[in-house]
């Protein structure tokens, strides 16, 4: 009975969590492309102007970033200026929650058919590597190990901390700038 009563609140909290995580990830994608050379090299292979979307089906939360050239991403928020070129779509908010709460790795989510790719699969593979790289920077190692297939052995603490600090600073700045009227 109690469970039934609190269930709507749980669903709402889950949706809010996914929504906030998408906002953080979108901004963090832009930030990591500004601070990490490996991410820039990955992104350079994407066409300039490519719009990448990560969303929850059917009309749930989403994040949209654009490759603005030379390996840099720009976060567009929840709405795209034109039709997106590549979309990774979670089939349900519960699946997005599993991934964004680090209970399921992105690669596991693909293997478990939790999400679909609409667009060039090779770009999706590349964006997954970028997301993994981002997660290894911004998450504590113990949590990052749950989020990525393999935690990179060559990522040492000083580099991780410095990169994470720069990414978080940029994300915070972006939050302040975008919410300011």
């Amino acid at each position, binding site marked *: 009975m109690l469970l039934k009563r609190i269930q709507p609140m749980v669903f709402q909290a889950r949706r809010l969590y996914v929504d906030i995580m998408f906002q953080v990830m979108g901004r963090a994608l832009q930030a990591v492309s500004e601070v990490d050379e490996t991410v820039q090299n990955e992104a350079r292979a994407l066409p300039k102007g490519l719009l990448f979307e990560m969303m929850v089906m059917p009309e749930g939360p989403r994040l949209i970033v654009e490759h603005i050239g030379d390996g840099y991403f720009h976060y567009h928020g929840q709405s795209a200026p034109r039709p997106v070129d590549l979309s990774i779509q979670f089939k349900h908010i519960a699946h997005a929650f599993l991934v964004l709460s680090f209970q*399921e790795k992105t690669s*596991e989510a693909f*293997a*478990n*058919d939790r999400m*679909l790719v*609409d*667009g060039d699969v090779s770009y999706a*593979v590349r964006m*997954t590597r970028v997301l993994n790289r981002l997660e290894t920077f911004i998450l504590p190692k113990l949590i990052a190990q749950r989020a990525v297939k393999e935690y990179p052995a060559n990522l040492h603490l000083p580099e991780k901390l410095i990169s994470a600090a720069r990414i978080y600073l940029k994300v915070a700045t972006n939050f302040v700038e975008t919410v300011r009227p």
Partner: protein
Amino acid sequence: MSQKYYEFFCPVKVIAGKAALEHIPYELTGLAAKRPMIVTDKGVRAAGLLDPVIAACEESGLEIVSIYDDVPPDSSTSVVRDIAGVYRQEKCDAIIAVGGGSAIDTGKAVNILVSEGGDDIAKYSGAGILKHPLKPFFVVPTTAGTGSEVTAVAVITDEKKGVKLPFTSSFLLPNAAIIDPRMTLTLPPHITAATAMDAMTHATEAFTCMAKNPLSDAYATAAIKKISGSLLNVMDNPKDAEGRLELAQASTMAGIAFSNSMVGLVHSLGHATGAICHLPHGLCMSLYLPYVLEYNLESIREPLGELLLYLEGPEVYSATPAARRAEATISAIRKLRDQLYKRCQLPRTLKETGKVQESQLDHIAEMALDDGSIMFNPKEVTLEDARAVLRRAWA
């Protein structure tokens, strides 16, 4: 609560064994189809493989209304459009694809156009675009390796844009796959070997990669057992119909396995090598399989060790200490490749192919890293890892 989750889907009716082709008329009638069209290639026709299919239908009073036998090895959007034109002109109502991967993929793509309408197959490219069942579609494989008869994917080249268009939908699956030993009886030795190793790789990767599940595992292990039990016999006695049927069934079973659990790095490297060096897919699979298993070893030790039972039988399995079974599995695959090399010179290294330059390895590694199947490899692959595997596979 269990954290495991999987999906498994295969609605294809498998019609396999002696006189299987003779079931085609009955099965078509059951789907209210009366005017089938055959889609095939010149090689299949020249080998006389259409004759038993046509005879089986005519004997039952079912006329094959049209035969398109000009499917190229890499089928294109214009070929698909042309065949759809013939289908409409002749008022056909079903498609029978007879051949290997290209003819089957072409049949799937033609079925999209004739069922959904239009002339531009490119607009149906992608995943989940199709929303309705298509026209009756049967597949008669003439190789025992691709497993295309049970996969929900087709790849067609857009010659204008110079890109390969993928089509993914469960509606692409045929209504029936007809596995008749007569269709693979004349397959030359090197193609028999390469396609069987293609099926072996499908099954091995299905069993060891990230999306493995109990149902695909059952198909994968059964396929490996059939291949290891029959391949060398068939190589020594090409007219062994029993053995041919075993390999054909193994190919279908491996196809069911990998289409439900995906594949990994062997396929990523194989796709890249095929695109850059134009090596046949089955040959690439055979070539890379042991090197990739060695690379993945510590991530797949347990499932790989289990495969020893299906490769070498219960005596060898029980005599091998559990801790050594994974390595023994790789040795068994290497031994099989050596036997195939002895019988038909199926290359075991990139150098032995004579078609790959050492300078191309970096390009292959870079391309492999962007291949979709790398996502399902149990171990994360970096560019340096891919290069290292290629160097080991070189000579």
